[in-house]
């Protein structure tokens, strides 16, 4: 269909009125650029907001205890209770499709008092008793040494892994960290590793001021007995934690003599649900991006359609001559269609390139001024580019359709008579 002769014909026709061709092309150029930019900005917003979720496995929930709100089995309301270590085993054995269950205990916290001492230096940090699985739920970059292990858990070793913030406040520059001891609430603990958050946006400071210890060591050293402060539970990838959580709650309620309809006793935060909500929002935003972009593009397409109609009108006589020389109606039609297609695609490609340039500039600026709240790495995937190209091809054909039909509607004898 696109032979060299056809190309010559098309380029000749488009070149015949350069300024008009340029103006017409601008509509499509602008439309597709807006479309791609809108999608890139939506993506940037999405990247920024989802970065706030950190790297924590999104199919997770956190579960803790609160005072009961209903009396049950002779127990009063307003009763406090604790999860126990064997609750974890019970959940593991009775609820299928769970990937990780991490019982956790915590010491210190927001605005806590100084609780860690090393020589003359002190600091207030968050100290957690954790299982080795926790690093799979909350990815950490281990900078030196290692994370806690199951042999630490079994032997109740007094070891810990410290965050970069801890290192900064307790150690001098270039000091060896591994193998040193720090005193946590009066208990000497060996430092076996340092870490930083894999993705620290927003809460980086707090995360860096964190110390992880083996769960069993923590319980024994700080008198927690069999108690579990809270649990971080992650479901397997294709089962949503939201669908599993009623079963878990039911189990916990029955094990702790909580009224089955007591909604207050078990507190939880469903990360998956929150994440779904946010990603739902961004699907809508992406749709809006496509919709608005497509509307802007449409005015460009109508521009092309309009100009092609004028071109056909202007060339009525030429079309008549061509038909007298033996041009079939289809060859006339396809020429008009191809002209509009070439015009649309060329200007669209330039539009996409322009949008890519703007995105690149945005990213360069973002890189140089550092992270911006709720906005990061605006970009579009190659699929979006292909979608845009398909939109261009379809709209180019649509733009040419009416003019192409009107080009052959007139009888050649009438077309030739036009002056």
């Amino acid at each position: 269909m696109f032979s060299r002769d056809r190309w010559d014909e098309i380029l000749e026709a488009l070149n015949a009125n350069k300024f008009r061709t340029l103006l017409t092309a601008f509509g499509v150029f602008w439309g597709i650029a807006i479309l791609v930019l809108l999608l890139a900005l939506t993506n940037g917003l999405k990247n920024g907001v989802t970065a706030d979720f950190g790297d924590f496995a999104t199919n997770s929930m956190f579960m803790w205890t609160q005072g009961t709100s209903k009396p049950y089995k002779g127990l009063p309301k307003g009763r406090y209770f604790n999860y126990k270590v064997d609750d974890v085993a019970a959940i593991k054995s009775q609820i299928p499709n769970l990937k990780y269950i991490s019982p956790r205990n915590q010491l210190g916290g927001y605005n806590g008092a100084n609780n860690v001492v090393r020589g003359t230096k002190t600091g207030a940090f968050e100290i957690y008793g954790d299982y080795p699985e926790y690093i799979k739920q909350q990815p950490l970059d281990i900078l030196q040494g290692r994370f806690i292990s199951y042999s630490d858990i079994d032997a109740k070793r007094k070891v810990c892994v410290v965050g970069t913030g801890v290192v900064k406040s307790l150690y001098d520059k270039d000091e060896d960290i591994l193998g040193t001891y720090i005193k946590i609430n009066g208990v000497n603990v060996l430092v076996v590793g340092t870490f930083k958050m894999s993705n620290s946006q927003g809460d980086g400071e707090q995360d860096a001021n964190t110390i992880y210890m083996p769960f069993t060591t923590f319980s024994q050293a700080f008198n927690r007995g069999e108690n579990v402060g809270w649990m971080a539970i992650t479901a397997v990838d294709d089962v949503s934690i939201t669908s599993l959580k009623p079963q878990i709650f039911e189990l916990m309620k029955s094990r702790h003599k909580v009224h089955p309809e007591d909604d207050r006793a078990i507190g939880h935060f469903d990360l998956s649900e929150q994440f779904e909500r946010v990603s739902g929002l961004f699907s809508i935003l992406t749709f809006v991006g496509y919709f608005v972009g497509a509307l802007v593009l449409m005015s460009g397409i109508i521009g092309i359609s309009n100009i092609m109609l004028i071109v056909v009108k202007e060339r009525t006589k030429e079309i008549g001559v061509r038909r007298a020389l033996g041009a079939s109606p289809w060859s006339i039609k396809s020429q008009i269609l191809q002209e509009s297609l070439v015009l649309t695609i060329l200007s669209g490609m330039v539009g996409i390139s322009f949008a890519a340039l703007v995105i690149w500039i945005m990213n360069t600026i973002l890189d140089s001024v550092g992270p911006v709240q709720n906005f990061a790495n605006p970009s579009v995937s190659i699929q979006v580019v292909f979608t845009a190209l398909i939109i261009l091809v379809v709209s180019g054909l649509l733009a040419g359709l009416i003019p192409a039909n009107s080009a052959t509607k007139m009888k050649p004898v009438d077309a030739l008579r036009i002056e």
Partner: protein
Amino acid sequence: MIQIKDLHKSYHMGTNSLHVLKGINFNVKEGELVSIMGSSGSGKSTLLNILGMLDEADSGKYILDNVPIKNLNEKIAAKYRNDFLGFIFQSFNLINYKSALDNVSMPLYYKGVKRKERTEKAMHYLEKVGLAQWSHHLPSELSGGQKQRVAIARALASDPKVLLADEPTGALDTKTSYEVMELIQGINDEGKTILVVTHEDDIAHMTKRIVNLKDGLIIDDSPVQQVRASLHV
């Protein structure tokens, strides 16, 4: 070559209907050079358009080179025009953004001839009309007579059976008209069948036969003594 029998054509404009051709009968043999004369409104252009398959008759028979021309759709009509006919117009109708060579090769393009062969043939016909050195000029850079000669080369390019010329000298001065007629006579001498519509007596007398139309009927159809255009140039 051309056989026409009882050809009728009328135009409808709103409630008015205009009966333009009221039963035309005539035949043209191969190698003839015929002029069709008549005052404006006599139906000579309509007749030529029907012969050129640019327009369709209401009734009557039209046989071109033993092929009955009827119930044409546009696709077949386009193919017949390309195969059988060459058109020469009063206002030349060259495509103004194409060079003389490209204009001449256009019918060959629609015939599906390969680029190289097309250029060779087009060049050959440009030489024939004496414009080889103008092949890369745009129509706007040519004089009226030159334009018409390019148009004649274009009409010849696809080697048609019949040339149809609608007032070929209507836009030219006398001297150039005679030059163009000399060319047409030369082509006819080589055996090409040519029909010329004109209202100029001197041009008509340069053909071999004059058909006179009046009010949609042939009132006179007689051979004439051909005047060679070269005598006037």
